[in-house]
């Protein structure tokens, strides 16, 4: 029942509890006079002081968490393989499965977490994007974890997962990908000088067309090359889009026309106020 791992955690629990009491007394600034000194720490501050509250709380929590883990380990015989095998009625416990298929959701999850971190510092849009990414990664990860264990054959598992998830994944990924791409390119086009935007407008479709031809004519092109090309292209467009969004739109010639267009469309017009010395003539109908 009490094996090495649980003994260690029981030890940590005992250490945490004794340490909490010693620490509470040592930082309490009270005279040591019998049971009264101990009463505060033992009753967790209910019947007396505990000195430095932060340290005392952390040590008590250390003790409680360790005790809980120790009890769990005792109950499970420290996850002893032989004990587990007896519980499930087998001679031996099967080996842990090797992760056979590539799974990109951990990296998507990590990027989402990074977007959340950036969003926490810079702006709420990135935070929302990160949260959406994290939610998608969590759901996909859960599906992958389930499908990895359906049968003992990784190829069959991959097939089952594909049949279940591809009808959802491919359209959603396409919509998201195209949306992001268009948004990023539009930011770039709005930020670049007029002639630059003509160049980008011509160059980007040409590159996409070229990569498409490359993939179609070289069906044996390695996945790494394709992944590298897509990653590079994606990053370039997104980074360009973000940079362009930060830099802002270029100054359009004929700003007056913009206001006019806006007025025609029913929008609000910014009316310039008269100069201080200017005479204003009001005409009543």
């Amino acid at each position, binding site marked *: 029942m009490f*094996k*090495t*791992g649980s003994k*260690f*955690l029981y*030890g*940590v629990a005992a*250490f*945490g509890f004794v*340490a909490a009491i*010693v*620490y509470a*007394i*040592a*930082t309490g600034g009270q005279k040591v006079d019998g049971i009264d000194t101990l009463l505060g720490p033992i009753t967790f501050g209910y019947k007396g002081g505990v*000195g*430095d509250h*932060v*340290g*005392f709380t*952390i040590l008590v929590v*250390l003790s409680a968490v360790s005790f809980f883990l120790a009890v769990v380990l005792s109950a499970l015989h*420290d*996850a*002893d393989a032989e004990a587990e095998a007896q519980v499930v009625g087998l001679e*031996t416990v099967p080996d*842990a499965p*090797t*992760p*056979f*298929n*590539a*799974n*990109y*959701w*951990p*990296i998507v999850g*990590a*990027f989402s*977490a*990074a977007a*959340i*971190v*950036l969003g*926490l*510092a*810079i702006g709420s849009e990135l935070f929302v994007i990160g949260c959406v990414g994290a939610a998608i990664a969590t759901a996909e990860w859960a599906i*992958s*974890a389930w499908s990895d264990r359906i049968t003992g054959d990784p*190829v*069959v598992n*991959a*097939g*089952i997962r594909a*049949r279940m998830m591809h009808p959802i994944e491919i359209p959603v990924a396409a919509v998201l990908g195209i949306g992001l791409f268009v948004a990023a390119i539009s930011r770039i086009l709005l930020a670049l000088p007029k002639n630059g935007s003509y160049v980008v407008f011509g160059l980007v479709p040409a590159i996409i067309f070229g990569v498409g031809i490359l993939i179609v004519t070289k069906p044996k092109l*390695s*996945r*790494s090359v394709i*992944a*590298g090309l897509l990653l590079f292209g994606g990053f370039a467009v997104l980074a360009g889009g973000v940079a362009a969004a930060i830099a802002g739109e270029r100054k359009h010639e004929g700003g007056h026309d913009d206001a006019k267009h806006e007025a025609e469309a029913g929008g609000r017009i910014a009316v310039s106020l008269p100069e201080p010395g200017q005479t204003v003539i009001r005409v009543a109908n």
Partner: protein
Amino acid sequence: MALTETPPETVDAASATDASPTPSQPTGLAAVLGSGDHKVIGRLYIVSALVLGLLVVGLGEGFALEGIKPETYDIYGLDSAFQLFTLARIGTVFLLALPLLIGLAMVVVPLQVGSRAIAFPRAAAASYWGWLLGAALLLGSYAINGGPGGGSAEGVDLWIASMGLLVLSVLLAAVSIATTVIALRPAGLYLARVPLFSWSMLIASIMWLLTLPVLFGLLVLMYVDHRLGDSVFVGSPAALYPNIQWLFRNPQIYVVAIPVLGLLGDVLQTVSGARMKLRGVAQAAIAAFGLLSFGAFLVAPSEAALDSFLVIGMGLLAVLPLLALAASCADLFRAGSFKLRAGVIYAVAAFLILLLGVAAGAVGSIPDVLDAPKGGALADNIFFLGVSHAAILAAVIAGLGGIHWWATKVGRQPASEGLGMLAPLVLLLGAALTVIPDLIAGIAGDGLQRNADFTGGYAGGNAAVAAGIALVALGVVIAVVSFLPLLKRRDDAPADPWGGLTLEWLTPTPPPLDNFVADLPVVTSAEPLIDQREET
């Protein structure tokens, strides 16, 4: 009511269509990005930690050089010195020592405990990518004038949030490693029989899991406070740093160095070729050291807390487990032989530096031995910087030593033995020169506030520290050069170059995806390969 049935032949055809095309396994970059193989993830951690580590060591060297002329700013500016100081301190732990050891553990621990995979392989992968992006954002936060003492509010927020991501990633890795040791052992490999490196990683992971959430909670509080007007951490953003200083002083800093003890035990036992009679003592010593390194309760400590019986007792007692482990290892050579290997020099060098740091920590914890530096608190004494450097450098030396020792598992063939013997000697000398001047200056009551450029120490001592850090950088470079053969495939690379005693040496070089080619032998002792040899 219509009844729709699928004809049997259609089902067969559909099944055949689904099952027949075997999806080809991705290779190269695609395989790396999507890998759940613990060896690939571990290698990524190791390479990234070494690259970022050299940057951090370079920063530290800049501070030591800065300290040679304490009255002037020679390298860093008035505005950036404090920020870069915090980056150097945080970086040595979170960008160098911890990821290096985690990477090594990710490769070695599943092999040592006879598992075909790490527990939660995808979580292990996520921990690496999260850590890498967290590290990039941390560096980015300093680049935009963030970090403690930074002038940009967004930069300070980004620093706090990226620290949170780093902590979560380390916790995820710790969960994977600890669960592998606890739950993925084969029949007969009880925890009492687990190799000492894996045991030390289990203890270290548990201690990280018990202490780093406190840091995470603190970061959440800092973030909320900073966004809503600095009412808790009053003052400038620089006031944030003292609240995480407990991470870098003893006893908490020892949690980084717990695997040093496991490496020493494993390497010395293997070269001795003998069974460890005092294995229980060695395991208890590692566990006790882990326990005595719990320092989360010293978050923003008062003077009274630092002088409490508990802190003094923990500081003094921490030396004993190291001595007990040394005794257990020395006992091995009564029964076994001794062969001088590069791995032995690495392990002993790391242990000696750790012993220096822990012994100094014990001295420093005795009341009235150290004085509070002028204008600062006792915790600001530069003595504790020396103790912290000792623990971190011991962890780095152990990490490099582990890569050398398990080179045939980390890479494709053994590392260069000649360079491998030189590197730890250079590192040992460099570490001693880095640590000892700060300890001497600390006994004289010196603190980081003494000098205008935030370097602390004395000019002469700082010159020695500068030489020491330069030697550490040189040692790391020599070690990395000695690892270059790991990248090259060699058909006749030995699976077990040292005559190993534990299960990891049964795997071929390099280990395949599922680690073991044949079925493992039934484990009946802590040295299954000795049993196997005795049977044959």
